[in-house]
């Protein structure tokens, strides 16, 4: 699948709730397993950016405005 989007996370303000993980249709978002951010949470992030389709689901459901989405 060709990369269509780029999604960036402000990791330091993420509360690690995982809602974004649950709504990603291409299953590329995951919570950091070891590292914690300054708030003490395991922040969300994308491992395989090339699979992002810029659907914005993650940004729409994020309660903390962590996510910015760009379309390529």
């Amino acid at each position, binding site marked *: 699948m060709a990369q269509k989007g*780029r999604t960036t996370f402000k990791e330091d303000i993420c509360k690690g709730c995982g809602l974004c993980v649950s709504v990603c249709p291409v299953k590329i978002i995951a919570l950091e397993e070891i590292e914690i951010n300054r708030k003490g949470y395991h922040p969300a992030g994308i491992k395989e950016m090339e699979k992002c389709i810029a659907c*914005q689901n993650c940004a729409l459901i994020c*309660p903390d*405005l962590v996510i910015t989405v760009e*379309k390529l």
Partner: protein
Amino acid sequence: MTVVFERTTGLTEVETHYCPGCTHGIIHRLVAEVLVELDILDDTIGVCPVGCSVLAYKYFNCDMQQAAHGRAPAVATGAKRVHPDKFVFTYQGDGDLASIGTAEIVHAAHRGEKISTIFVNNAIYGMTGGQMAPTTLIGQKATTAPYGRDEETMGMPLRMSEMLATIDGAKFVERVSVDTPANIRKAKRAIKKCFQVQLEGKGFGIVEVLSTCPTNWGLTPVESLKWLKENMIPYYPLGNFKSPEEVE
């Protein structure tokens, strides 16, 4: 490369105090985005309640008043009558609006007060630690309903939107949910329509938003969305209860 989603300028840079996964943050964002898209942020006076969203005055990037518990519609009435040319909204939870503030919300609607209300229904008192709300579901446990809500002694959960829709002065009444991206998009459309009803001088408008409380429900944020869908939506059906034809 174009940015298709970024932080709205309708919110301040302050990080919210909401628990992880609490959908208040989503609802704040939708309201703020609509204020920006309608280009009314600089002409808005918001009124926040007592409850989890008591600190909303720190988050919305517009003039704000913090109201006593349940009184936001009365405070908004005062502000709107002084500034009829400004946009005035209240942001209230279920304890605030459906319990202690029933008189104020009913009569703001009854007067056809040209204000807009965002009513966040998560079926529990969040800020005070999970006590029963008028909207708590039958069988749902709360710290003040430790054996679950019982119809016989606590009554059935109150459906505010249905009740308010019977009032002539209420011109826009819709219930939405923020449990899925699709529903979040619908919620935003409803909020925009509701705000337009005020801008067009038609009367009172309210959007009830079904919301989660992972902390006090004792569920993970993701489980909470599922619980909302499976338990709240059947009792609190989504949809528009009232809308002026022009807005349709």
